[in-house]
């Protein structure tokens, strides 16, 4: 009568399918490798550089040489060392930004999307109000209020990221909420906490991961921007943005010192975007749901 379903070997898991799809995307893989390279260099900073990033040498504004791979800046500091240590600070800043933004926006987006109605209205109008400020001005204001430091700068940038994140999350929740399995769970007697944590969160995770990956790049860029304005990490330690700002005044006589941090920022941001696009293709659209 009812034949027992007993299928053959297990098909690949979601994770494996995702990895194989991502690995096939060469451009995204190139981006991922570059990001990985930057991370490794940042972690191994003392091992991959010969000098302290704050040590002054008698040669100033020098081009690349055997002693100083990327040359030196206007006060005789080794550019390679500063770049490597700067990667630490820049990455730390963007990690804090994205984590903080997610921590704040996730509950807002989930709650607004799931409960909708009045709750949604109040939360989203709040987000709209934040949207209304130009992000840079908002970040400068927050950074100025909190005082100059790397962490305060990161908080300031995170604040500008929150409304965007919250909107994306809410939108996804609204879409998932209409699925039948949500109604099915409700008819089983599941409470709101279980619904959000167990059914909604995993189903909005994919777009969230993509958003986070892309935002890493933008966070790095924003950090560079604020540092350029002098609101970030304080001298003598330097993020890439600070390096850019210091070298900027000599851009005509000694463009080298500007080009290097600029290139580092551009390539890293590009790589994060490529990774984000790759994730979108591997996780997002066309994700096989088994529908015939």
């Amino acid at each position, binding site marked *: 009568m009812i034949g027992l*379903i*007993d299928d053959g070997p297990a098909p690949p898991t979601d994770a494996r399918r995702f990895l194989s799809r991502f690995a096939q995307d060469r451009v995204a893989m190139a981006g991922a490798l570059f990001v990985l390279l930057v991370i490794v260099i940042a972690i191994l900073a003392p091992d991959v550089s010969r000098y302290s990033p704050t040590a002054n040498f008698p040669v100033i504004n020098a081009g690349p040489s055997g002693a100083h791979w990327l040359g030196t800046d206007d006060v005789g500091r080794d550019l390679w060392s500063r770049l490597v240590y700067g990667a630490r600070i820049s990455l730390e800043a963007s990690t804090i930004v994205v984590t903080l933004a997610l921590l704040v926006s996730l509950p807002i987006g989930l709650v607004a999307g799931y409960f909708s109605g009045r709750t949604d209205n109040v939360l989203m109008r709040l987000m709209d109000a934040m949207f209304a400020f130009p992000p840079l001005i908002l970040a400068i204001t927050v950074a100025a209020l909190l005082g100059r430091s790397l962490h305060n700068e990161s908080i300031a940038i995170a604040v500008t990221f929150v409304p965007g994140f919250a909107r994306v999350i809410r939108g996804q929740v609204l879409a998932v909420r209409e699925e039948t399995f949500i109604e*099915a769970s409700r008819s*089983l*007697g599941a*409470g709101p906490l279980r619904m959000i944590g167990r059914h909604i969160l995993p*189903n909005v995770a994919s777009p969230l991961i993509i958003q986070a990956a892309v935002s890493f790049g933008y966070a790095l860029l924003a950090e560079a921007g604020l540092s350029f304005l002098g609101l970030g990490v304080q001298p003598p330690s330097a993020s890439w943005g600070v390096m850019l700002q210091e070298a900027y005044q000599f851009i005509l006589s000694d463009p080298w010192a500007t080009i290097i941090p600029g290139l580092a920022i551009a390539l890293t941001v590009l790589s994060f975007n490529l990774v984000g696009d790759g994730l979108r293709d591997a996780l997002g659209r066309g994700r096989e749901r*088994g529908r015939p």
Partner: protein
Amino acid sequence: MTTQPETRATSATAATVDPTATGRLLTVRGLGVSFLSGGHWQPVVEDVSFDVAPGQTLGLVGESGCGKTVSSLAVMRLIPAGRGRITAGSVEFEGQDLLELDAESLRRVRGDRIAMIFQEPMTSLNPAFTVGAQIGLAIRAHRDVSKAAARARAVEVLDRVGIPDAGRRVDDYPHTFSGGMRQRAMIAMALACDPTLLIADEPTTALDVTVQAQILELLRSLKDETGMAMLFVTHDLGVVADICDRVAVMYAGQLVEQAPTEALFARPHHPYTEGLLASMPQRAVPGRSLTVIPGRVPHPGQMPAGCRFRARCRYSVDGCEQAIDLASVGSGALVRCRRHLELALSGIGTAVGSAGPVPSADDRPRAPRPDRGVPLLVVRDLRKDFPVTGGVLRLVRGRVNAVDGIDLTVGVGETVGLVGESGSGKSTVARLVLRLIAPSGGTVAVNGQDLGSLRGRELRRARAGMQMVFQDPYSSLDPHSSIGRSVGEPLEIHRGLRGSERDQRVGQLLEMVGVGPHLAGRLPHEFSGGQRQRIAVARALALEPKLLVCDEPVSALDVSTQSQVINLLADLQERLGLAYLLIAHDLSVVRHLSHRIAVMYLGRIVESGPAEKVYRSPTHPYTEALLSAIPIADPARQRARQRIVLRGEMPSPLDPPTGCRFRTRCAYAMDICKEVDPPAFATASGTTTWCHLHTSGPALAGAPVSSLAPTQGSGRVRS
């Protein structure tokens, strides 16, 4: 259609198909299509050959995943580039090979000589343009005519497909059209350039039976009038019996049988065809389980060698694993089965039961349970209004009467079927019963406990005693939760079961619905639709409910898997004493499973009573029309029967007709129907009907509607 006595010997290449087709319009030979899957090109259609003669209708049938749609798309070269490609064969149409044409010549054929209509009428029209503009565009793409002339032609074809007031509607946007109207508009667009071939891909699947009957009627008359040929892709054998001259059955990317419709239904030669015919619920004997085709269609890339059906075939023997070609079996029929000469397969002639609303000798009721009839679910005067808001201030502008005073009782161990067209409010009733939405009035009591008085935790506990099985098994399981986790969820919520205790119970539940317990860790997308529906049933059973509310539990499934799920539901009822509130539009499914039936129209019940009584001798004109609209899977009877094609579509519940709500479409409407709500009338056979015919006018007084002589101007059609 001509049938010539002479049959040509079939060569090993299977190149000769349908020797009877003298004048060929479309000749497909050795068609092969591959799709890119996981980085590899997998053949999904192999060596498919068929002919369509001018004015002929060829049906392409099979379960989903068999390559029917892909084959029909390949004819028009509409296989999405990059994902799929045509690897072999030729498609000869009016003397030219479409596969050889350059882009411009192909464009000239598409939409002009060959037109296409699709399954989903809601999305196949562009919402940004008026219907007339889209039809005009189609005309001007092929004919050098002025805009005014194109518009005039649009009005003409819209009028031809039965759009009322076509001259005005031509300037309306698609969203103002209902589903059935949009499909008519699509057909109008297809007809605009007088094609010689119409490819229809499941054109009625998304529509209600009554609207389906209208569309089929329309296609039939258009065909007679214009002499166009049709390639009709469908999974519904009733529709095939209704409209097709020849049938080609596809399985796992191959043609397995091809024959004239009547011959195929009377005596199939391939076991797969036999299985498809036998598993139709309308051919089942009430109280007996349905025939099933075990297993599922193999995926591309995992095709077994030799006969692809052999793993699911009850006749398979040693030797079936060797390659097998199509062979001629006379009178233009072809079959791909090694044993076709020795097997005597049963068609509809040797029926397992009776189809259609015609009395049959077998009237065995289902075994009643001792405690059956003790009321479990009692619904009284249930109402639900949805406010309609509009304008800047979101003021309530009106109310949609989705459910308007429903009384319903479901006894212990009993199945009550709730039927009606979409928009009748039956799904709203399901949600009201489970209190997934709050009613505007009336009471729902389960086991004597009024759900209306319960809140929060208590309500959640009460819900544990009744569970819901949803229509779409593809979206009713969380795609990110393993099936074991989904099935175990109610156990965690209500019983607090964790770890191995839970897993053990999940294993039992999965086994109960016929899914191997070791598969508990897999994700839903690894299962087919029918399997997912079983898993959904297992989840619904986790808390040992007494009542299952099944909202269209099988309508999203293929015929063969449909019967598996129906059997499972019947089997579980017998073993566990479950009561079902079964909501469906398919009356044959409802009849097979239900003890009692209630027919809903526009928020009200119009007739209710014992299933067989309602099915055999409907006492309400709407029930009669609904039954008449279901195509019977028997070409001879389907074509000979007297059909009642309902006029128009269900009125908006926002502004329901006064008096009897059905009167606007009723063939027997009288003056009194306009003013007075029909009272309930209990017939001698145990049914209750809400119709003035029984109390005033011709006074049927409980007799079936069919005993009335058709009045002039009624919707009855004999075709």
